[in-house]
C-alpha cells in the first residue's frame, strides 16, 4: 500500500555531499526539504583521554564551559541569540572526542554555525561562569553518587578496564573537578582543540552546497599547529576469574547490575558478528534471551538486556538488569547461564535470521529524522565506513553466519571470567 517513490532514500554517494577543507575538517551535508529545520552535529578530536589523572574531568568541564562566554559574546548574549531563534546548541565532552549537537529553523543555519565557531574557537572562560559551572558539575557528581545504575557501570569499568584508560569516568571525581583551574581550561583548549580530525554534518531543509559553503566561511581559517595526534590506547588485560565489586548505597529499593567483558571496537572485523550476536543475546524483541530469562520467565526485573558499545576503542559488552536486593544472586546466575549457552552452542538459525531481518528492516526508521540522518553520516566518517556503506548494509548484515557469531562470542565473553559491578542497598 506504499505510495512512496524515493529510490534514493538511503544515504549514499548520490545524495551526500562531502568536502574536506584545507585544514582537515570534513563536512558532510544532505538535504531534506520536507523539513523546515536543520541539524548540525559533529565532533572535534579531543576528549578525556587527554586528561591528567589528578585533573580528571578537565576535557568534559572545558567542553561544558565553551558556551559560557566567547571573545565576542557574553553567556547571556549567546543564549539570547540561540533561544530567541528557538534554536539549540550543546557541546559535550566524551572519552575520545568532544561532540556538538544543534538544531534550528533552516533560516537560522548561519547563526548556528557562527555561534558554534565562536564557542569552539574563541571561548573566554569567564571566571564567574566557570565557578557556577563547577558547582553544577559537583552537584551532578553528587547525584551520580546516589544513582545505582551509574555506580554499577562505574564499578564494572573499574574491573573490566583495570589497566586501561576506559576505567576512568570522563566527568571525573569531586576532588579532581575541584582541582581544575580556569587556567587549566584555557591551556587545555589552546593545546587540544583544533580542526584536525573534526567532522561536521549538516542535514535538513538546506541546499548541501550552501551548507558546505556556510561551514567553510566560519571554519576554513581555523589552524592549531599545537594540536596533538589522537592517543593510542594500550591493550586491555584479560582477567583470569570472575571479579565482582559491590557498591553499597543505603536506602535504595533496587540493585542495578552491570556485568560482562571488554568487547570489540567498531573497527574490528568481527563487529557485525558481535552486534548481531548481541541482538540474539539481549536485544531482539523483548530484549533477547536475557530479557526472556530474567524478565519474562522469572519476573525478576523491570529491565534486563545486553549492550555492545563498539566505538573507537574496545568498548564494553555488558548485560544489565535492575532487581530487588534479595534477587541479585538469582539474576546474576540466570544471566551467566545465558552467557554460557551463548558461548557454548550456535545460535539457532531462526534467531539469527530474526535479528538480521530486524537490523535491515529498521534502517529506514533510524533515518526518519534529520537527527537520525546526521547520526548516520557521522558514523560513516568516524568509523571510515565508506560513503556507500548504507547501500551495502543489508549485505553486510546478511553475510554474518551462526559460526561467526559463536566464534565472536567465544572471543569476548567467558562465563567463568566476567566483571560484575552492582550498586544498591547491599550491606
Amino acid at each position, binding site marked *: 500500500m506504499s505510495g512512496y517513490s524515493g529510490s534514493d532514500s538511503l544515504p549514499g554517494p548520490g545524495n551526500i555531499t562531502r568536502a574536506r577543507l584545507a585544514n582537515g575538517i570534513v563536512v558532510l551535508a544532505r538535504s531534506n526539504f520536507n523539513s523546515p529545520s536543520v541539524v548540525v552535529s559533529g565532533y572535534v578530536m579531543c576528549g578525556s583521554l587527554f586528561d591528567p589523572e589528578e585533573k580528571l574531568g578537565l576535557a568534559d568541564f572545558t567542553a561544558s564551559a565553551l558556551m559560557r562566554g566567547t571573545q565576542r559574546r557574553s553567556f547571556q548574549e549567546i543564549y539570547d541569540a540561540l533561544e*530567541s531563534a528557538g534554536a539549540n546548541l550543546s557541546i559535550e565532552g566524551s572519552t575520545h572526542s568532544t561532540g556538538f549537537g544543534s538544531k*534550528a529553523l533552516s533560516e537560522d543555519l548561519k547563526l548556528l554555525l557562527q555561534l558554534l565557531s565562536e564557542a569552539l574557537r574563541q571561548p573566554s572562560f569567564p571566571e564567574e561562569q566557570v565557578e557556577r559551572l563547577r*558547582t553544577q558539575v559537583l552537584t551532578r557528581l553528587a547525584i551520580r553518587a*546516589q544513582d545505582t545504575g551509574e555506580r554499577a557501570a562505574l564499578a564494572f569499568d573499574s574491573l573490566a578496564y583495570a589497566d586501561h584508560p576506559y576505567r576512568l569516568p570522563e566527568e571525573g571525581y569531586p576532588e579532581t573537578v575541584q582541582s581544575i583551574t580556569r587556567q587549566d581550561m584555557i591551556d587545555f583548549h589552546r593545546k587540544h582543540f583544533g580542526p584536525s580530525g573534526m567532522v561536521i554534518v549538516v542535514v535538513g531543509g538546506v541546499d548541501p552546497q550552501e551548507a558546505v559553503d556556510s561551514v567553510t566561511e566560519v571554519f576554513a581559517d581555523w589552524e592549531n599547529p599545537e594540536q596533538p595526534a589522537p592517543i593510542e590506547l594500550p591493550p586491555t588485560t584479560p582477567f583470569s576469574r570472575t571479579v565482582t565489586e559491590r557498591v553499597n548505597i543505603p536506602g*535504595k529499593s533496587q540493585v542495578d547490575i552491570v556485568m560482562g567483558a571488554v568487547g570489540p571496537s567498531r573497527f574490528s572485523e568481527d563487529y557485525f558478528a558481535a552486534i548481531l550476536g548481541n541482538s540474539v543475546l539481549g536485544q531482539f524483541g523483548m530484549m533477547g534471551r536475557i530479557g526472556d530469562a530474567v524478565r519474562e520467565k522469572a*519476573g525478576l526485573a523491570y529491565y534486563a538486556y545486553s549492550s555492545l558499545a563498539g566505538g573507537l576503542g574496545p568498548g564494553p559488552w555488558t548485560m544489565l538488569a535492575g532487581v530487588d536486593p534479595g534477587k541479585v544472586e538469582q539474576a546474576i546466575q540466570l544471566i551467566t547461564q545465558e552467557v554460557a549457552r551463548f558461548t557454548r552452542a550456535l545460535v539457532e538459525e531462526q534467531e539469527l535470521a530474526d535479528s538480521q531481518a530486524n537490523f535491515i528492516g529498521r534502517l529506514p526508521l533510524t533515518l*526518519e529524522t534529520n537527527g537520525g540522518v546526521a547520526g548516520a553520516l557521522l558514523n560513516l566518517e568516524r568509523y571510515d565506513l565508506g560513503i556507500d556503506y548504507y547501500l551495502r548494509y543489508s549485505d553486510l548484515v546478511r553475510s554474518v553466519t551462526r559460526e561467526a557469531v559463536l566464534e565472536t562470542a567465544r572471543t569476548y565473553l567467558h562465563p567463568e571470567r566476567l566483571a560484575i559491578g552492582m550498586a544498591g542497598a547491599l550491606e
Partner: protein
Amino acid sequence: MSGQMELQSVTDQSVTKLRLSNGLLVMLKEIHSAPIISHWMWYRVGSRNESAGTTGISHWVEHMLFKGTPQFPPTILDKAISRDGGFWNAFTYLDWTTYFETMPAEKIDLALRLEADRMVNCTFDPLEVESERTVIISERQGNEDQPLFRLGEELQASAFRVHSYHHEIIGDLSDLQTIQREDLYRHYRTYYAPNNAVLAVAGDFETPRMLDRIQELYRDIPAGPEIQWRARSEPPQAGERRLMVEGQGETTYIQVTHHTPAASHPDFFPLTVMDSLLTGPSNLNMFGGGISNKTSRLYRALVDGELVVSVYGGLQATIDPFLHTFTIIMRPDRQVDEVLPVLVGEIQRLQDSPPPADELARAVKQARAMFAYGSESISNQAFWMGFSEMFDDYDWFLTYLDRLAAVTPEDIQRVAQEYLRSQNRVTGVYLPTGNGANASWGGGV
C-alpha cells in the same frame, strides 16, 4: 464495505477523521516523505480511572497486553514486530493508555492485525499476571530510588485530596501486592472497546485502502457498554500546603506546584506562554527534543543568581484540571529559605506588571521551532492526532500556535494572578540526610 461511517470535519484537509459504526474514531494522515507508517491505538483510560485498592491497574493492564492472545501468543508477538524492523511500545498516562508501532510501510498490516486482536482477545494468563506483578513492583522500586519521584508522588497526593489524579500512574505498592487477575481482566473488558478508542495512522499509505483494511479488521468488534466512570472534582484549595520528604543523598530538590485548568480551557494557552517566560518552553512532543532555557526569568534569577543549579517547569495537557510544576535542584551551599522568596518574587513580578511584548514573541517563535522539529518524525505526527483527541480534539493541535500567538501581555498577568496565588500552591522539599548534607527548611517564605 458494509460498516457505516460518520465523517468528521477537521481543519487540516490532509487528515481524514471518521467514526465507525461501533464507535471507533479513526484518523488517517498520508505522509509520503519516507517509506514508514506509524500506527497508534489510544484508549481513554489511565490512572484517572482508578480508585483506592486498584491504583496502578491501568498500567498493569498495559503490561498484560504484551502477554499475548490465542492468535498472537506472547513470544510470537514481539518477535513478529521486531523481525519486520518495527519499533513499538506503549505508555500509560493520567488520562490515557496508548500502543504504537512504527514500521516499514509494506509491513504495517501486522500492526493493524495485532492491535485489532489485542483490543479484545488478551488472555491474562494467571501465571503471567503473577510474573508481571514482580516486574511492576521492580519498576516501582526503580522509581522510588529517584528523589524526584518520591517528592512528586507526595506533591501530587497533597494537591489532589479528592480527584483521582491523587496517585502515581504506577500505583501504590499495597495495591500492586493485592490486585488480582480478575480485577485486571475486568478493567480491560471495561475500557478496551472500540467506542472508547482512537486509532491514528500516519505515513506512507493510500487512505481508501487503509480505511478498507481498518473496517475489515474492526467491523466485527462490537461497541462496549457506556463507560460509567465519573471523575470527582477537586475542591478549590484554600491555603498553601507544604510538605517534606527526607532521603539519602546530598542534594536538595524543591517542587512548587499550582493547580491549573484542563487543556481545553482557554487559559491553558496564556499559561503555556507564562510557563515559557518563567522556565523556558515546554516540549509536548513525544519525539523531537526541546531547547535550553537559559534566558528564562527563573533561570536568570535562580541559576545566574547562584542559588540553584537548575530550574525547569511544565504544564500537562489533561482532561481535568491538573498542575503546573516548578522543579528546582539546589546548590549544596544554599538553603531552601533563600530560594523560595526569590521564586515567589518572580511570580509577584509577573502578577504586578504585564511582560514586554518581545518576551512573548520569543516564546511563540520557540514554540514554532519545536513544532517544526516535531514534524520531522512521522511517529510524532501520528502521536499528535491521537494525543490531542484524548483531552480535546485534533483542532486543538492545529490551532495551538495561533492560540499561543494570540496571547497578550495582559492575559499573562491575569493568569499569573489567578493561578499562581499562594492559596493555590503546594510546596514540597526533598531534604537529603546523607553524609555532609546540612540542608534544612525552616518553612518560612
